[in-house]
């Protein structure tokens, strides 16, 4: 009789895939990102003129509009724009990875400590976080770049400097909610150490929210990096950073439209990819992340 009443329910994975399938755009996002990563890795082999990624000069072919030879045209010193955009993917992806690595590396443990240990640790960490969050991120990043030498690595540092509080907040919130759950209380009663509970019990339980936020933030970090580059506060020419490319091309508008257009399009597509995937993952894991 029990067999009639109990029918096997589909597993969690099947349910997750059901949700993922309902959001086909996320597959588009995933493909965009995979293609971008491939382009970044294979840049020296794909780029038609790999030498143009740096300071090469070909005055004979300045400002050529898009053609078969130069699909994205050439720039003010005759470099192939396509090659430069291809090499730019390396910079943007690296920037995103480095920024988030630092932001998560700093922000996450702080949030865990604040949420789990409570008391003075909590108030000190969260007050500092509040102070950082009281300044709009891009403004703070600008202020940081002001005191540093202008180059790509310092701009990464500046962005990471403004980014960690968001992860502190996320980890803090998740820790507070997980702290009360049975599995943590059981470990506590069994005498597990606090470090063990924080990093082995609580941390693994927030990976899905974390993954979604990191995916979405990759896109935003790349945008902020490009904005700094555009303002002349990030990578300096002749580094083929996308924001810098747009900024350099802007002087020659509207006639030499191809200089700014393609680099900007590359940023757009990459960021779109991360946003689409992040949204899909949010459905997949069924979590709420701002």
């Amino acid at each position, binding site marked *: 009789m029990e067999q009639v009443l109990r029918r096997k329910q589909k597993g969690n994975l099947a349910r997750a895939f059901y949700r993922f399938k309902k959001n086909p755009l996320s597959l588009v996002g995933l493909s965009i990102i995979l293609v971008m990563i491939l382009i970044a890795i294979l840049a020296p082999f794909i780029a038609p003129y790999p030498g143009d990624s740096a300071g090469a000069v070909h005055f004979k072919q300045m400002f050529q509009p898009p053609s078969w030879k130069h699909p994205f045209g050439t720039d003010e010193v005759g470099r192939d724009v396509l090659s430069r955009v291809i090499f730019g993917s390396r910079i943007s992806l690296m920037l995103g990875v480095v920024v988030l690595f630092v932001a998560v590396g700093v922000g996450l443990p702080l949030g865990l400590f604040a949420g789990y240990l409570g008391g003075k640790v909590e108030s000190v960490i969260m007050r500092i976080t509040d102070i950082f969050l009281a300044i709009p991120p891009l403004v703070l990043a600008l202020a940081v*770049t002001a005191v540093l030498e202008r180059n790509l690595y310092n701009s990464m540092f500046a962005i990471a400097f403004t980014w960690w509080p968001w992860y502190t907040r996320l980890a803090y919130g998740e820790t507070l909610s997980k702290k009360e759950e049975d599995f943590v209380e059981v470990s506590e009663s069994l005498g597990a150490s606090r470090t063990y509970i924080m990093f082995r019990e609580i941390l693994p339980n927030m990976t899905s929210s974390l993954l979604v936020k990191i995916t979405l933030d990759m896109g935003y970090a790349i945008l902020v990096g490009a904005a700094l580059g555009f303002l002349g506060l990030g990578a300096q020419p002749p580094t083929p950073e996308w924001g810098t490319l747009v900024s350099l091309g802007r002087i020659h508008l509207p006639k030499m439209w191809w200089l700014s257009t393609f680099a900007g399009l590359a940023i*757009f597509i990459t960021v779109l990819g991360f946003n689409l995937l992040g949204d899909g993952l949010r459905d997949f894991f069924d979590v709420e992340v701002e």
Partner: protein
Amino acid sequence: MYMVLVLFGVSLLIFFLARVMPGDPARLALGPEATQEQVASLRHKLGLDRPLYTQYYVFLRGLFKGELGMSLITKRDVFKDLIQRLPATLELVMTAMLIAILGGIPLGVLSALHKDRTIDQISRIFAFAGVSFPRFWIGIMFQIAFAYILGLLPITGRISGDPPTRITGLYLLDSLIARDFPAFVDSFKHLLLPSLTLSLSPLAQITRITRANMIEQLRKDYSIVMRTIGMPEVVNIYKYMLKNAFTSTLTVIGLLTGWMIGNAFVIEQVFSWPGMARYGVNSVLRNDFNAVVGVTLVIAVGYVVINLIVDLLYGYLDPRIRLKR
């Protein structure tokens, strides 16, 4: 009270950022060719050779007097420079926010009511695009399309002729007060592209959040009860559900304002908008230290105030919070 504490922390943060970070403001300001003596004399002039706590005390005392120190570029007090440029940024950000709210909320409601149908799909694609565009790039694309090719709108600047008599510093308002209609139209035309560019991403985000909140509202017991008892659908949606949905959208609007102020730095640069943010970027580029500190502080204060207003509005809209207090 907490706000004051946060602001105090912000001043500390900015101060230490300015002084503790590797890099010598005097050296940066004078450039690599300056002699050791020149640098030392500027350090002395700026008070950089005094102990840190004295420097912070001087800095804080200046803040209370409304002095942010002299700008190395304009040779004026930074505070005066900022006051002069603040209205332009305010006008830009407020217009952009208005566009984002007035566009995003109806679009969000519409998508929620037509969930998973064509309108919703279009708005979803638009939303993804809106948050993914690099702001500076879409601004440039607008310039190419509307200014260079179609010739409909001016490329850069705030106004073509002389600005209207300064009362508020907001050209739209000032020209209306002066009954200078051509100036109003002209400054509106100048304002359109930058504010549209700045509003795109917040518009998309407000649309998505309003949509999510409205879908939640449509499922609420009270919405269903009201509809079943016979409340007209229009009233039920646009009065009863929307007020609830807007209440939760409001917190995000506070965050988005901060986002807008940050991105105004980029937009003002693209459109040569003579605002505070452009002043900030130029100060960073030219190592004008006091100006950078001033801009950051003023923005932090503004941002804290905006969040305070949002909190108050939130309490006003939601009796559950008001009555708990």
